[in-house]
């Protein structure tokens, strides 16, 4: 399952690493949109498969941040 950004912004930090187990609603990344920090949460329980972006990357709406399986 893909985790995507709800709004355009810059990645501040990725708060998980590949292979890590997460529960639903765990914080997985922080992005900055309009000078405000916005947390991205895991949509479901699973294991982080692939992280596609890193801190400093600019994202558009619906860009994939990582995959969870």
């Amino acid at each position: 399952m893909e985790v995507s950004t709800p709004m355009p912004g810059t990645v501040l930090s990725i708060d998980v690493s590949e292979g890590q187990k997460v529960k639903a609603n765990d914080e997985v990344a922080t992005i900055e949109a309009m000078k405000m920090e916005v947390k991205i949460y895991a949509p479901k329980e699973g294991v982080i498969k692939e992280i596609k972006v890193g801190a400093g990357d600019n994202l558009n709406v619906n860009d994939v941040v990582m995959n969870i399986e």
Partner: protein
Amino acid sequence: MEEQIAKNLAGMGLFHLTAGNLIMWAVAFVLFYLAIKKQIEPLLLIPIGFGVFIANFPLTGLLGEHGLFEMFYKYGISNELIPPLIFLGLGAMTDFGPVLANPKTFLLGAAAQLGVYGAFFGALLLGFTLPEAGAIGIIGGADGPTSIFLSNALAPHLLGAVAVAAYSYMALVPIIIPPVAKALTTKQERSIVMTQLRMVSKGEKIVFPLLACIIIISLVPKSAPLISMFMLGNLFMECGVVERLTDVSRNALMNIVTILLGLGVGSRMTAATFLRLDTIGVFTIGIVAFIIACAGGVLMAKLMNVFSKQKINPLIGAAGVSAVPMAARVVHMMGAKENPQNYLLMHAMGPNVAGVIGTAVCAGALISALT
């Protein structure tokens, strides 16, 4: 000789300081405190506060016919030059994408202007004249440059109070919006998750400022100074071929005129003009205006939900009070509190920028009706 010495000593400002001057210094220090310690609108409150501070020294001549501060005021504000220039910079910073993606949110920006008229009647009840009430009402639009623009046109003697009230209530948006928005919505409504906004093409974004000019200026001509500059700045940004002009409008030019605006506004706040009962009236009505504006937006959103299948989260209506982007941020945080996966920020930007347009239109309508 003694007489001469006495006369020269009497020319020292020290002997002419009044209690009013000292109180105004205290007002200036409060503004400095808010700006430096609390980081509330520091870019504006520092120049305004300093203007207040210096304007309350006796015998400086700064406010005389050819005084320095008088010139900032006369050629910058009284001529209505600076507020439109600030709008140029704001236009070059404003992304209309969210409101173009969800055009219904224009109506939320309109509904929030009810605060302006609510406050207008409130001010009349307190005994202000029609033009004064118009100038005070516009505080409900939560837009600094527009408030200055309008109060200068309708009631220049209230300009200092109106400007400071507008900026200080804008800073209080995080305190004013939540209780009002919460009281008018249910938990269920606040947790409504809105569908993803569609991507808006570049062409749409370039065409919008031109279409907006045609519609707004032909319907409300007196809003032209603000709207035209706002849309020009936006065209600079969206057309993508004049990056230098975009950059100078939103940075260098904006910063320069902000200094002049701040000093000009601050210099209007002398003891004689500010320490009056009127000022208390302005501040009281100002907060009422904010509350009605916020409620107007929320109730409009609820009304639209009755008729529309695609539900909108009524919280975003509260972002119709301009205060860009603070109001949108507050709304986002309220939504996230009910449901962490609810991202309202971009949705709230729609009514937020629509509110800026709405307030400018309001100002235009008030000017043509009252002058």
